[in-house]
């Protein structure tokens, strides 16, 4: 191994900008994602400040509307997507024993499209105001229902920023998804049949396939909206006889699978972390694969459960309700399999496992409140209320974000060569966990008490004060957790314990190369015989391949 000579900063910068290495691109994705996490988190914090007491006036209505729009859009497209694509970018080739992605330059292209699209979205804070004088950032909600987005009701260019930046970023995601599908299906090392891939690779395969299928409809409606706004077309113009539900159907055909696109990588990280820290092989691997694939398929047929209140016919309501219930089955299978993996193991509660356990325990409840929302008459009461806000934050925060932190603590040593500080990590977990419960638990109650979502203030004397105050306090507690995380990252990068190649005594291929891995990953591409190639190497007397 050649050690890189000292480079001046500009040259290092140049290295990163022109790179086509999947690892560098992965790191850039994740770093960008975390930066936007902080931005979108701050927006959420401002909203909680505004909602702490009734009739508060910290934020004006339009600013509040812009903040929740940007918070949702950012969290989904500029935090969730890049982190999951980045992690896949970094670890898929390492896990399947490949030197790089199938199309390295396309990979860079995908990243930069995302990067510039994201910048364009945030430029709206400046540009939207400066050029039209009408308004700043987009304020039509992350699902931007027509006809509120038409020029009549949203003049100025804020909504165009939303459309165009997400269109560009979406193109980037499609490029990366093409790359991931191809890499997983054609670049596996010798011996790695599909059923011997790490579950991570399986889940990212399903994930990338979903991206390929559902992002084009989003692109189509974005183009349609752009044609409406810029060229006078009538796709969503009620005056011309258009049906506003077309937007909703196509948006949710994208939007619902998008939620799975976000959470499946969470499953993927958890499915790698839990076995290693329980010292057991993953329980029911084939069932997990089957469950993941079926979640992928079912997710394509449930979109209208976001539209139970739009006046669909009873038969359609019943179908979408049933399909939505069905999602609960494979999801439940996964949860039970994770618990069964822990059962009978020797569980070490290092920070990754702590977050993984937090994920499993919270995701159960997020799934169950999802079942509640699938009961159509209950949805007539709960849809568009804070109960829904509580529900999807339970899934995306208690689920996805905990999984991301789990993966972050788990793979940080592989990426940087240094371990994150365990003490800070545990403090971070507990602050986030408690803050999470206090923030999002009361939101369910506020929903029961009749609080619609997306309101910039609420009326006093209607039983909402306590729940909102609690939520805001919870948000403040979370801030401590996030600060600890940032401190931990910076401290550990300089002074963290040297990790070595395999700090967790793990079993997948990425731990067989150096930390950080060289640009070519493996000097010689590996050959494997089982799902846990490193187990075979560590226990040559009792290898896995005899049993699979």
């Amino acid at each position, binding site marked *: 191994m050649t050690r890189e000579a000292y480079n001046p900063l500009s040259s290092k910068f140049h290295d990163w900008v022109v790179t086509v290495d999947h690892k560098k691109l992965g790191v850039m994705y994740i770093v960008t994602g975390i930066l936007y996490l902080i931005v979108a988190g701050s927006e959420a914090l401002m909203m909680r400040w505004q909602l702490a007491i009734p009739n508060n006036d910290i934020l004006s209505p339009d600013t509040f509307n812009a903040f929740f729009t940007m918070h949702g859009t950012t969290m989904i497209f500029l935090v969730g997507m890049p982190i999951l694509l980045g992690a896949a970018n970094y670890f898929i080739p390492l896990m399947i024993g490949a030197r790089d992605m199938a199309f390295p330059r396309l990979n860079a292209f995908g990243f930069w499209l995302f990067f510039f699209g994201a910048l364009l979205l945030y430029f709206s804070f400046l540009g939207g105001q400066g050029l039209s004088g009408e308004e700043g950032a987009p304020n039509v909600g992350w699902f931007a229902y027509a*006809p509120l987005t038409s020029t009549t*009701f949203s003049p100025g260019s804020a909504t165009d920023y939303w459309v165009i930046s997400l269109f560009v970023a979406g193109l980037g995601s499609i490029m990366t998804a093409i790359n991931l599908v191809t890499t997983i299906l054609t670049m596996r090392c010798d011996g790695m049949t599909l059923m011997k891939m790490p579950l991570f690779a399986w889940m990212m395969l399903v994930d990338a396939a979903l991206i390929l299928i559902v992002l084009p409809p989003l692109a189509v409606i974005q183009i349609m909206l752009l044609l409406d706004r810029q060229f006078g077309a009538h796709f969503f113009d009620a005056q011309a006889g258009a049906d506003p539900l077309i937007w909703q159907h196509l948006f949710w055909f994208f939007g619902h699978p998008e939620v799975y696109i976000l959470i499946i990588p969470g499953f993927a990280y958890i499915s790698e972390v839990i076995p290693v820290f329980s010292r057991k092989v993953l329980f029911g691997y084939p069932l997990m694969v089957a469950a993941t694939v079926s979640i992928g398929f079912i997710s394509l047929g449930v979109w209208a459960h976001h539209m139970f209140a739009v006046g669909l016919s*009873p038969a359609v309501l*019943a179908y979408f309700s049933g399909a939505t219930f069905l999602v609960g089955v494979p999801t439940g299978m996964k949860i039970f399999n994770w618990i069964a993996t822990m059962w009978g193991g020797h*569980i070490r509660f290092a920070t990754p496992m702590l977050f993984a356990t937090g994920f499993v325990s919270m995701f159960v409840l997020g799934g169950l409140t999802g079942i509640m929302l699938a009961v159509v008459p209950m949805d007539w009461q709960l*849809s*568009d209320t804070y109960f829904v806000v509580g529900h999807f934050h339970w899934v995306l925060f208690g689920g996805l974000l905990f999984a991301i932190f789990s993966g972050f603590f788990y793979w940080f040593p592989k990426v940087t060569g240094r371990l994150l500080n365990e003490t800070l990590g545990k403090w971070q977990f507990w602050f986030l966990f408690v803050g999470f419960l206090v923030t999002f638990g009361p939101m369910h109650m506020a929903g029961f*008490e009749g609080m619609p979502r*997306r309101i910039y203030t609420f009326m006093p004397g209607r039983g909402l004060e306590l729940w909102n105050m609690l939520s805001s306090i919870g948000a403040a507690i979370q801030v401590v957790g996030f600060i600890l995380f940032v401190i931990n990252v910076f401290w550990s990068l300089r002074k963290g314990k040297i990790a070595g190649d395999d700090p967790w005594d793990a079993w997948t291929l990425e731990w067989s190369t150096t930390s950080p891995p060289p640009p070519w990953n493996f000097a010689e591409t590996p050959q494997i015989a089982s799902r846990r190639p490193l187990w075979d190497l560590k226990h040559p007397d009792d290898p896995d391949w005899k049993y699979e």
Partner: protein
Amino acid sequence: MGRIPLLLILFFATNSSIALAGPENLSIFDPVSPAATPIRDLFMLVFGVIGIIFVITEGALIWSIIRYRAKGDETKEPPQVYGSNPIEVAWTVIPIIIVFTLFLVTTRSIYSLDMQEAPEGALKVKATGHQWWWEFEYEDLGITTAGELHVPEGIPVFVELRSADVIHSFWVPRLAGKIDCIPNRENHLWFQADEVGTWYGQCAEFCGSQHAKMLIRVISEKEVDFNSWVANQQLQAAEIPTEANGKETFLSLACINCHNIQGVTTVGGFGPDLTHLMSRDTIASGAANNSTDNLRLWLQNPDSIKEGALMPNMMLSDKEIDALMEYLQTLK
């Protein structure tokens, strides 16, 4: 309801949250309408089901956390168990049975609650969502009002939902679930207030700047009271000669471009009908009480009550406002 203790506990828990809410509560657990009560019952069933699942799953998780925590001195890996057909079949089939049952119940309740035709003897109301207020039209009675929906107690109300601009959603939690108001579409909703009282609600679909203050009040009254309210609303705006000054001011200003007063001007329709303005408890779609001070403030600067409201600041002089106030207060 409440045959087993778990459901009782849930019932009390939800009831205590209602108690916390006070008299103006919007709790979905405190229904006063046959369109909302079955949903509450459904809640109790589903709470029970998911409660049991939750306890079992978290129990297993917590048990394995406690029982299988590494002692730190293990020199051997634990036995590697790959899977178990019986248990995997069990936790596939049992959830299927559960969701199948829930599916049956859901389907039945959709059909029983989704009413496409107005029932016999129902009061028909047309509710139109505007940015950011509600228009209520009783076509059979020839009444148009805004923000506050008066209904008789114990009689089903069949609401036709429409939108004048963007998507809104009509939601009064204690009376019925929400249904959206969508341009170019006509949706329906029904409820029946079984008690006399005021039931609160608001727009539930994001509709722009003042989505938060697009409030609804449904006022259910004894039939006699309702009938006298109807009789009053059916009157055209009284011609009161002493108030001619204020009326002229009203007619000379841009007010008439948006606001109608039956018997006086019917050019507008973009803003709420003002024929019986003073019979309402609130102005600006429930954003403020209908007091002299608030009304004056509203005329001076609508943004101070409801920032971003589509009623423009007309830059009226004090004299004009005095005249308008005088006139508006005759619209009883």
